[in-house]
């Protein structure tokens, strides 16, 4: 049995190796289905089955051990032409180390066919047990027979959602099975159970393939899921990420001679990061340079939430903050998280919610009720108060930022204004 897809009939396997039948019949089946050599992209794994590339007239891609199903998947994603066929040659060893890749391709039902050469051991490396070695089958790492069952790869890929899965013995003419697998729209996997004369036959004398499969509880058969093949569908895309950021015009002046560092801290859910962004943008609106970053626990919904800001009349390079110039604390969580830094302050200003105990510090203390417009607005209230009190930037720039970001409907702007004396 020869095929235009093969350039030789003498394949590089040991005499009697089951891989020979698979290569010949699969290539013949592709040809019979009308695929010309360059319609086919053969992705081969590492293992005896994978040394076939040089005998193929198709496109060939020879990658890593166990990764061929993922590599084939990547090719399948990138092919816009449905007339092309991605075929993956992989062994039971490759299917063991790369099981996840096969499952993922089956789950997505990607357009590709995996030809699984299951000779029940790692042929290339000396006949060791693989994850697909059946129970009681002897290998060079279990001479008395594998004490455990192997994975049922057909059941796994079928339940993952493969359009077509089939297990067959690698004996005689099985070209109809190859043909079925190749014609599938979506993901198909054909597991051919075969034997490696060099190790399998030697270690399991007189055992017949069908008996090995049956006694291990595996069924010969075909399993189908009727579901559509994968289609690349993407959510709404942005044509330009830069057009998503608002340009901030300089509309106000500032009162800052030297750079200052500010810590704003409170509890998760109390608007710290939002307030920090509003303060940053208001500072930019006032002609300052700004850096801003947040820190919070990995579980973002609980505990402290801290923002670190630098404001400067000139360019900011280094943005780290050791001992801050200004600390604004709106809750107990915020106080705890920054206590050491506050203790270390020898000068500067600490703005602190009036409900909290005053910590030891060399900073000037300014107390205020930041939580009067509700805990959710504590951070926002605090930055309005800070800008009014410090005079560094015009507090009006904050309300301008809120308005230009269309947040004035969502935030209680008037209530905050009313809560701060003199606004």
């Amino acid at each position, binding site marked *: 049995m020869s095929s235009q897809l093969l350039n030789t009939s003498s394949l590089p396997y040991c005499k009697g190796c089951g891989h020979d039948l698979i290569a010949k019949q699969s290539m013949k089946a592709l040809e019979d289905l009308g695929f010309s050599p*360059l319609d086919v992209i053969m992705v081969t794994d590492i293992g005896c089955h994978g040394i076939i590339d040089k005998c193929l007239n198709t496109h060939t891609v*020879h990658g890593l051990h166990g990764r061929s199903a*993922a590599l084939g998947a990547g090719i399948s994603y990138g092919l816009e032409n449905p007339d092309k066929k991605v075929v993956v040659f992989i062994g039971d060893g490759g299917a063991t180390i790369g099981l996840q890749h096969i499952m993922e391709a089956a789950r997505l039902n990607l357009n590709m066919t995996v030809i699984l050469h299951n000779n029940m051991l790692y042929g290339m490396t000396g006949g060791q047990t693989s994850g697909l070695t059946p129970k009681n089958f002897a290998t060079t790492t279990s001479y008395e027979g594998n004490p455990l069952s192997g994975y049922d790869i057909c059941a796994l890929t079928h339940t993952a959602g493969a359009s077509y899965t089939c297990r067959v013995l690698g004996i005689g003419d099985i070209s109809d099975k190859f043909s079925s697998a190749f014609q599938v729209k979506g993901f198909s996997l054909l597991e051919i159970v075969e034997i490696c004369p060099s190790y399998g036959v030697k270690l399991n004398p007189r055992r017949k393939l069908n008996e090995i499969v049956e006694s291990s509880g595996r069924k010969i058969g075909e399993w189908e899921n009727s579901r559509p093949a994968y289609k690349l569908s993407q959510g709404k*895309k942005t044509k330009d990420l830069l057009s998503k*950021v608002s340009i901030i015009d300089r509309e106000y002046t500032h009162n800052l001679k030297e750079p200052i560092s500010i810590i704003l801290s409170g509890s998760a859910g109390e608007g710290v990061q939002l307030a920090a*962004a509003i303060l940053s943008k208001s500072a930019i609106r006032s002609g300052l*340079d700004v*850096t801003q970053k947040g820190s919070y626990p990995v579980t973002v919904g609980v505990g402290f939430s801290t923002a670190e800001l630098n404001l400067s009349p000139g360019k900011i390079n280094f*943005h780290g903050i050791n001992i801050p110039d200004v600390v604004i604390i709106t809750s107990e969580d915020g106080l705890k998280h920054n206590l050491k830094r506050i203790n270390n302050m020898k000068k500067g200003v600490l703005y602190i919610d009036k409900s909290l105990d005053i910590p030891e510090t060399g900073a000037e203390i300014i107390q205020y009720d930041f939580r009067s417009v509700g805990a959710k607005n504590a951070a926002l209230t605090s930055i309005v108060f800070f800008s009014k009190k410090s005079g560094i930037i015009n507090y009006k720039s904050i309300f301008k930022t809120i308005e230009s970001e269309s947040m004035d409907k969502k935030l209680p702007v008037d209530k905050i204004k009313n809560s701060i004396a003199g606004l």
Partner: protein
Amino acid sequence: MQEKDKCERVLIDGSRLMIESMARAGADAFIGYPITPANLLYAYGSQRMSIMLPAPDEITTLQWMSGLSITGKIPVTATSYPGLALMIESVNMAYMMELPMVIVLVQRLGPATGTATCGAQGDLLALKGMMSGGHPLPVLATSNFEDCWKLSEKAVHIAAKLRTPVVLLTSKEEVMTQKSFDLNLLDNIKQTQLKYFDKDSNYKTYDAEGLVPEFLPVNQNVHQVRFNASTHDQYGILQHSSEDALNNTRRLEKKINEYLDEYTYYDYDQQDGAKNIVVSYGISSAAAIDAVSDLRKQGIKTSLLIPKTLIPVTNVYKKIINKYKKTVIAEENINNQFGQLLFGVERPENIRFVEGLGKMITPEEIIKEVKK
């Protein structure tokens, strides 16, 4: 520079600049698996790139990218060391197959899971030794927002031109911190295109004629293409160690080195009469800029070198450094990785090192070392 009369000030992060730049430069797919501190890049990648695929792990990420690359796409991913560690065998594969792609490596504090939300500069030596055989893979390190823009473009261009994976090296603070920035400072980005083989003659996937073989994807029916990660000859056919195949392996290294001058990027701020030079890259370079400016104000003449192309190691940096009596290298690790790249494990006496672990190096620490 773009011709715009007024300044366009925004509050922005480096991740956004990187993804937008790469998209404009010709990258067309983002594949990834989430990891802090690279998550912003992941989010922007999914919004911007025409193909975005969420991979189930980082090995799959690199394999899917390679597959896409084989069909003519230029894919991008972003990760941190734990993800890179899983990718390494596949990066070797992509290097061997000569597939263009960009890996943004956002450094965080290791070893292992370390501290996900803490920056670091601890992965340079791992990148240096990433390829079996010690072959170099281009590594560019960003040190400011202009770099996030410009070097991201360059990374895509180098990947396409040299047919290779390229690493953009950055760190947590660089890609997550929001800063005021004038969009007018951004140059236009040139879109790159993979150079396709377009002759009727016999095609060899790994033709040794030019240093970089012309590309053909698998979605064409004119020429047979053979991608191969095993040692192979010009046709892409597996060989044990034939002369042709070993020459091919030599060519892989040669092409990366040969074009190095074209992609050697650095900032050199030389002060006449200076006897000291501060050398720093990535996140620590901001502290170095402040330190040098302070030193100059104090009357201590000091030059500044910010290397951006880190691998292959160019001799340009050593030539500059050799002009000075004293060099202070600042990087956020405890073993002077860049210093080791330049000088080996035994640093000369006049090469000083300012270390950092779990926190950013400050300008004061650098100043102190220069003054010592």
